[in-house]
């Protein structure tokens, strides 16, 4: 159970960093304003956090059992491969279901195929011309959010 000092330092720092990144990912998912912003933080922050924690576990078992223990690398690789795929599919689902996004979003919607955005496609789903300027539109969207 007792580790050398440097190994213990590395494992502790990686554990705290991993916990912090996982916490940040979930905090972003709680705080951001629309679905497409909320998609960012779990796919980046939480994946980095779980990577840190799995590397910490790998180091801990390798040092304490005095033999290479690389099975955690499997989970790390699997999660690092599947997280972008999940994010992509969730973004496609959000576009397909015409979720609203806040009015300050820049850029235009790229051209999607009909099968990507559904049958009754609207030209610019979240951004009709606001009657009272962008700020009131933003407030209205925020008010409508928790329906």
């Amino acid at each position: 159970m007792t580790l050398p000092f440097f190994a213990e330092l590395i494992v502790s720092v990686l554990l705290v960093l991993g916990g912090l990144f996982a916490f940040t990912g979930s905090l972003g998912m709680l705080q951001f304003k629309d679905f497409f912003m909320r998609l960012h933080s779990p796919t980046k922050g939480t994946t980095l956090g779980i990577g840190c924690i799995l590397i910490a576990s790998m180091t801990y078992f390798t040092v304490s059992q005095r033999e290479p223990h690389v099975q955690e690398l499997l989970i790390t690789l699997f999660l690092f491969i599947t997280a972008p795929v999940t994010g992509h599919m969730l973004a496609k689902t959000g576009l397909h279901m015409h979720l609203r996004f806040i009015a300050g979003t820049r850029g235009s919607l790229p051209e999607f195929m009909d099968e990507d955005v559904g049958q009754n496609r609207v030209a610019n789903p979240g951004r009709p011309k606001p009657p009272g300027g962008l700020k009131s539109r933003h407030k209205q969207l925020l008010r409508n959010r928790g329906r």
Partner: protein
Amino acid sequence: MLAIALWIAISFIVLALAMNIYRLAIGPDIPDRLLALDTMYVNAIALIVIAGMWLNTKTYFEAAMLIAMLGFVSTMAICRYLLRGDIIE
């Protein structure tokens, strides 16, 4: 030092799980809830790996691997159901 770091990591991840459950409850649309579930299984893997370090066993590695695979497959299945109305066409 390691025990303190384990406690800090466990508390951060439990807080993250609590925020995920809150988003799962209030999420205004279905993809929000799906995203919350997706984040929850990643955090559950982190919690299980930390429990394995805490108890000093390698037994929990298989559980973490199973949760990773089944979580990815279930997220894909629900996404596909929402996109297509069917899982296997």
